[in-house]
């Protein structure tokens, strides 16, 4: 099943390091603003709405 990783911005360096350690240095993922754990339902919806275009682009959805 096609999947896309979603990380928050402070984890960019770690995400890239993990991708390198798995042999995928150019691995594409979606990065969103931090934090997530302390958001309300409405704020979570906003985050999802904002990240969707990037997610669909990586999936190759026109």
């Amino acid at each position, binding site marked *: 099943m096609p999947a896309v990783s979603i990380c928050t911005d402070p*984890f960019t*360096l*770690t995400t890239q*390091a*993990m991708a390198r*350690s*798995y042999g995928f240095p150019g691995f594409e993922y979606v990065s969103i603003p931090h934090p997530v754990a302390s*958001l*309300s*339902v409405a704020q*979570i919806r906003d985050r999802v709405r904002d990240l969707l275009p990037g997610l669909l682009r990586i999936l190759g959805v026109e």
Partner: protein
Amino acid sequence: MLAEAAQIRRAMEYYDAQGWTDGLPVVPVTESYLAGFLAQTGRDPGDVLLALPHLNRELTVRLAAINAALAGCKPEYFPVVVAAWESLAREGYPSRAIWQSTTGTAPFLIVHGPVRERIGVNSKGNVFGSGFRANATIGRAIRLGVINAFGLRPHELDQATQGTPAKYTACIGENQEESPWPPMHTEFGLAASDSAVTALTIRSSMHIEARHTMVPEQLATDIAGTIARTGSLVHETISAALVLSPEHARLFAGAGWSKADVRRFMFDHAVRTPAELAAAGKDALSSRTRWRLPADHPDALPGSAAVGDQVRMLNSPDAVLVVVAGAANAGVSAIVETFGPRGTAPPPVTKVQDWSPR
């Protein structure tokens, strides 16, 4: 001598430039020096001591020896370093990626038995502090292995938000000689004549000052209050290693308390009211992770909000480990906040293997 000193400095700078240090200078390692470490163990240099499958990386005996040498260990410390890695593998948290967590844990080692005397592991005054090569370098050998064998460097794969000073080194000896109870490793199936290492994943070490009470219930209540602080709650319950000074241990033992009695008291008295948990935003549980969060959080499991008079912060008396360490000079002890065991498995007390130098 001046030329030699310059060569040593160049080697130290080289190691630093490669990123092979914890920020402090390391000891240059040659194959002949390494051989002295490998001769101290019956394990094959290629044996894997710890694997982190999610990183596709392994720490072999040879890599453990290189990092022990870099850390400043003497070769005769190496069997303790090997047992520490074996204990970490048994403990289980490292292979579940805890060393990459934002929590920022450190491995904490407790050394038991005659090897303490043989190699000079401090178990008395300043036991968490500096000044003892075996404590300082055995703990550091683990840290350097984490950095160099697994590549867990800060700002990269190590995502610790703040970390802990214990990430430089955290290794103490059990003060068996001034403990009123049998040595800890004999509680878990080893003989008093054995040596052992217990490795625990820890978050912090908290100081307890209780110098004037002579009543075991007062001392135990003071300690239980420290265990039950809300700030340590990430999961539903917590676990701890209670490192008692000889003075505090003797107060308990003199009143007829066993270690099991101390653990039971902690289980019954490390509690919070639902209102206290709600005030700290930790009264409910996540529907997915069962982490603590506020009852009005979108991820709160319906019906998980704490009810009743009291909520236990420990899931079992065995979620508290009791060990004696430090000087017999004051009513000072410590709670080491651990990530396990939580009463579901015994601590990974691991025998230091006897060896015959090859």
